[in-house]
């Protein structure tokens, strides 16, 4: 009621008023409603103890033959069934509404973004921050990814989380995440975006630590939140700078204000660097990437949704959303691209030697996010968003596929009462015979991420690589110098790193597939027959994602492959990022046909070569199960331990800070110096008060207190009423 009046009053002129788009507030509100319902449901037991078989119960441990109810499926009472319906349904409804908004947008094709204001949030001094949403092409794209993939992963979760005592709590958190993620992409100003930004961080924390009884999981969640906060610090400082220099914090106001600023202005460069610190935290870029591998402690669908498809791409979205700022700071943009390329490369090398199937995918995600930052860094914003979208398809598929495998192994272990690592690839092998669907679909995703023509990842990765090369050949961003290095040289270096990463991606993904699905089985003789494909509620989302991973490239076909409408996504996002792109890359950046062909050939060669190398060098035959495996030595060991950065940070930063705070600040200054000097040192005073203290202890002090209070009142009264 209140909402609608406010809406009609503020946005009367926009062509989208009166269409479905005017209900955009419902898109985040529905998941919020789901959160409330599931949150209430979570207060009641999700699965009835007694004749249950909590196959996923990491807390209670496994049941044993002879236990009451052993071997029976878990019994879902009303509240669990409620969550099964409400959890996915609210997100699906949001998705449908987003489709409606897309249709309304296409029908009206408005020239300006549609801004809905719901009221003042922080009116203070000369600052005015409203609760407002902004609908435009970029926001709609993100909304489709969030709600679309979100729906699929919610459905998958029904199967994956079945039998978990925290079933409703899980859906509550997941719904809350979708809400905050939608606020993040819909917010019309940096502070409103920041609400979503920190909100998704909170949900990520809650979901990583979902099985909180295990200290490892709790540690991982905490680490993610704190590292994200380091990034959020950058976001905050960027906002202070923006308000101090532009007097505005909403996107429209900032864009209007920066247009008058010159190219390469120092203030804007600093703002962009602080914003990028925020991106590095949220999107796991160097130096703040350390939390993402640990985040795999959460349930696997969470990894798919939050730590692959949506939240971690928020940084890419932020750069694209702030493209006007970054376009005016070419040096900062170049740095973004460079850090992206370095992250992509280093994470890919670590991915080569991980044994945990989810860890491989985690480093792969860090690496692919690096690609996206390469793209948005060189001003190829559409390429960045394109890769964001295709990556959401194939990486969600990979994670859910891995989830299926883990689920199946877990079920098999459960059957034989074996306690082992269901995520370690050394305990897998030959699963293709037992999990046909998962096997085929994960291969689709692997071919997509490796960049094999004509899978989705091929097109998006190629567009990223091509954009870098095109900028390196001649553009405004190639003119700037970064730390004394010429821009074009840096860009070629970025290109080389990206190409090398493409090669490495093909290697580690093929390795993952070979170890998991091919070669001899290391599952165990007793467990092997128990491994079977997950139920349809889990496989069906995989199938949808498989189709998207295969054909997602049709969203943005280049001229080289005229297999349908060309440049759909380019044209769609042009109004949002076109002007900024032109500033960084020049207006005319078309490459010759031959150059383009050569670039595509190089990318495809890297991918194919990578797969061949993996086929030749990866030998599943010599692998032994995890329990019997020896510790890796040499450079392989360095990679397996991810260059030991974590241990280094712990030793150099965290432990010294804690020791400094405890020994010097608390024990030394507080207890020693200040108390010693001011309190215990003043012996005379203390002795006087010791007497008073003894009276206090004597128990008569109630009367003393009264004597004092009464005395004070008498004095007051006498003075007043003379």
């Amino acid at each position, binding site marked *: 009621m209140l909402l609608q009046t406010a809406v009609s009053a503020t946005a009367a002129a926009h062509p989208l008023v009166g269409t479905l788009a005017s209900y955009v507030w419902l898109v985040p509100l529905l998941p919020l409603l789901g959160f409330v319902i599931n949150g209430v449901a*979570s207060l009641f037991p999700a699965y009835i103890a007694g004749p249950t078989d909590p196959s996923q119960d990491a807390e209670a441990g496994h049941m044993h033959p002879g236990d009451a109810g052993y071997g029976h499926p878990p019994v879902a009472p009303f509240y669990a069934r409620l969550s099964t319906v409400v959890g996915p349904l609210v997100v699906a409804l949001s998705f449908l509404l987003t489709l409606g908004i897309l249709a309304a947008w296409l029908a009206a094709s408005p020239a300006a973004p549609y801004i809905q204001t719901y*009221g*003042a*949030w*922080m*009116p*203070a*001094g*000369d*600052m005015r921050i409203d609760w407002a949403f902004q609908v435009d092409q970029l926001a709609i794209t993100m909304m489709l990814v969030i709600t679309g993939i979100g729906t699929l992963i919610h459905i998958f979760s029904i199967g994956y989380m079945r039998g978990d005592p925290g079933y409703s709590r899980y859906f509550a958190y997941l719904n809350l995440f979708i809400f905050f993620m939608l606020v993040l992409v819909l917010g019309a100003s940096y*502070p409103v975006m920041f*609400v979503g930004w*920190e*909100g998704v961080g*909170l949900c990520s*924390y809650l979901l990583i630590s979902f099985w*909180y*009884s*295990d*200290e490892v999981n*709790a*540690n991982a*969640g*905490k680490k993610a*939140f*704190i590292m994200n*906060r380091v990034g*959020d*610090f950058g976001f*905050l*400082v960027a*906002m*202070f*700078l923006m*308000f*101090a220099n532009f007097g505005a914090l909403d996107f429209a106001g900032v864009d209007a204000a920066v247009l008058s600023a010159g190219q390469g202005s120092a203030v804007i460069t600093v703002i962009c660097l602080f914003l990028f610190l925020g991106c590095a935290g949220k999107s796991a870029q160097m130096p703040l990437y350390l939390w993402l591998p640990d985040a795999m402690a959460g349930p696997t669908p969470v990894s798919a949704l939050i730590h692959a498809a949506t939240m971690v791409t928020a940084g890419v979205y932020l750069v694209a959303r702030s493209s006007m700022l970054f376009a005016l700071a070419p040096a900062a943009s170049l740095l973004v691209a460079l850090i992206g390329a370095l992250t992509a490369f280093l994470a890919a090398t670590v991915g080569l030697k991980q044994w945990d199937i989810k860890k491989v995918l985690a480093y792969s995600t860090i690496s692919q996010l690096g690609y996206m930052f390469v793209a948005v860094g060189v001003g190829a914003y559409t390429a960045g968003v394109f890769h964001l979208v295709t990556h959401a398809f194939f990486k969600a598929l990979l994670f859910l596929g891995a989830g299926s495998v883990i689920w199946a192994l877990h079920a098999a272990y459960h059957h034989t009462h074996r306690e082992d690592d269901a995520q370690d690839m050394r305990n897998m092998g030959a699963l293709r015979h037992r999990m046909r669907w998962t096997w085929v679909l994960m291969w689709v995703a692997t071919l997509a991420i490796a960049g094999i023509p004509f899978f989705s990842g091929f097109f998006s990765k190629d567009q990223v690589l091509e954009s870098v090369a095109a900028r390196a050949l001649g553009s405004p961003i190639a003119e700037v110098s970064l730390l004394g290095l010429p821009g074009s040289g840096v860009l070629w270096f970025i290109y080389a790193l990206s190409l090398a990463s493409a090669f490495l991606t093909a290697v580690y993904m093929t390795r993952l597939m070979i170890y998991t699905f091919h070669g001899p089985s290391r599952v165990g003789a007793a467990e092997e027959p128990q491994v079977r494909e997950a139920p349809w509620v889990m496989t069906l989302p995989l199938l949808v994602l498989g189709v998207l991973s295969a054909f997602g490239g049709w969203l943005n076909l280049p001229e080289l492959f005229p297999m349908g409408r060309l440049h759909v996504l380019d044209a769609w996002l042009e109004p949002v990022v076109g002007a900024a792109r032109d500033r960084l890359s020049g207006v005319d950046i078309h490459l010759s046909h031959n150059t383009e062909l050569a670039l595509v050939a190089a990318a495809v060669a890297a991918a194919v070569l990578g797969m061949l190398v993996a086929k030749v060098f990866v030998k599943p035959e010599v692998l032994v199960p995890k329990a019997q495996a020896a510790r890796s030595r040499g450079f392989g060991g360095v990679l397996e331990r991810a260059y030991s950065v974590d241990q280094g940070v712990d030793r150099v930063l965290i432990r010294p800070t*804690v020791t400094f*705070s405890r020994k010097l*600040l*608390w024990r030394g200054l*507080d*207890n020693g110096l*200040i*108390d010693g000097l*001011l*309190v215990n040192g003043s012996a005379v005073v*203390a002795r006087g008060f*010791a007497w008073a*203290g003894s009276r*206090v*202890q004597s128990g008569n002090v*109630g009367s003393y*207190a*009264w004597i*004092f*209070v009464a005395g*004070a009142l008498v004095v*007051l009264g006498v*003075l*007043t009423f003379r």
Partner: protein
Amino acid sequence: MQDLLVSVNFFAWALPALLVVPLVGALLIRLFGRTALPDREPGFAPWREVRNLAFGTLVVELLIALLLWLGFDPAGPAYQAVADFPWIPEWGARLRFGVDGISLAMVLLTAVVMPAAVLGGWTSVTTKIRSYYALLLVLTTGLMGVFLSLDLLLFYVMWELMLVPLYFLIGIWGAARRVRASLKYFLFTFPASLLMLVAIIATYVAAGSQSFDVEYLIANTDMTVLGQAWLFGAFFLAFAVKSALVPMHTWLPDAQHEAPIAAAVALGVKVGAYGLLRFALPLFPAGAMDSTVRTVIIVLSVVTIVYGALVAMVQPDLKRLTSYSSISHVGFVFLGIFALTVTGVQGSVTTMVSSGLATCALFLMLGMLHERRGTGMIANFGGLAKAVPMYATLFTLFVLSSIGLPGTVGFVGEFLVLVGSYATYPLATVVGATGVVLAAAYALWAFQRVFFEPLANPENAKMPDLNRRELGVVGLLAILIIWLGIAPGNMLRRIEPAAERLVQGVTTAAGMAGAQGTPEAP
């Protein structure tokens, strides 16, 4: 609403009522029963009546404060609901009370947290129950008086009326090391407030020994910059000690650790920062605006933010941890005040409110933990989220507000402080903003060790979750924290005119006094 209030002459009696109602309650409690009540279990019938009386009194207080809030006109005169009675004509001291947006926010905060503290700690006190509740009510009057007084001498009397009951509350109803804690509290605050008394008299004399009225003193104090700086220093010291600004903070963790719940909550009400806003800054603008003075204070503020957070991180006890986190908040409050921008001052007052609410809620919850397990040491817990899920959920929310998550009032305060202070002290602001990282570190680390990890201790596994009374109290506080986080507009609009007047008054007065008004970044 306004008309209705005017028709019952509400604005004439509201402020005196706020001061008298708790005193009447205290008197009734003191007179209750002929003989001393024996120390009994909480269910003892006469005890219930004493508690009901105290709680009822504070609810009446809350209703008056709420009406005052609703009736306050942000566009109206500076001080509203002014009540003025003669007091000591020879000295020109009067019983003069009034509210502006800043004091109104603090009055409402006090009126909310005091009944919450009584209800939340309903069964926590088991000895000398009449004295306890009566002193609590006297303390409420003292707090209200501090926020309402417009006469400097009256303010001092109220200040003492607030300090002394706290001393007894800690010393008598505190935990094991209560005597040491109350002595420490006294040792810090009493000399500081004596110093303030001297400064008050000096100010009075400097203004011609005519009146203690604040507005009169502001208009008529004729002093050199140096003199202002000295007097400002004296006031600042008193207020900084009471606010627990580093390095004058070590009494607070001890006091709050030992204090009974309600006293710990009352210690979380930021009277010191309020005193700066109402008296120290407007009275001695040139002293406060002196660039050296300001630089020192800004550095202390930033140090307090970081220091408080770092020391909070290594506390083995939850109550001390909460104390140190509120010390860290004080750094934000001081940063916002001495940035002297309207946004910064609004942020500071909001932070005072948010910190007061968070301190109240967290100490109530820690009190409930103490009642159940008799300890607040982090090492004794683990896995509580499984044992007491409702308790854990609400605790999470208060922690999140305390570390400034957007959507809670904690964020609004911190954000406005930092936006406001960036305009004058960019570097200090950036350093202060690292507090958000450190806050996450101390809060989540402690949270993990208490609520996550295995539920190893069977004592913890048997713990009952929140009962209806407890859920009601902390639930309402939770709603308030979220509501003020999403829609702080009503509060900010009331604070804004007062903040504007303060900033404008201080800067112009300092300019006239010939002080160097342009600050330099430290």
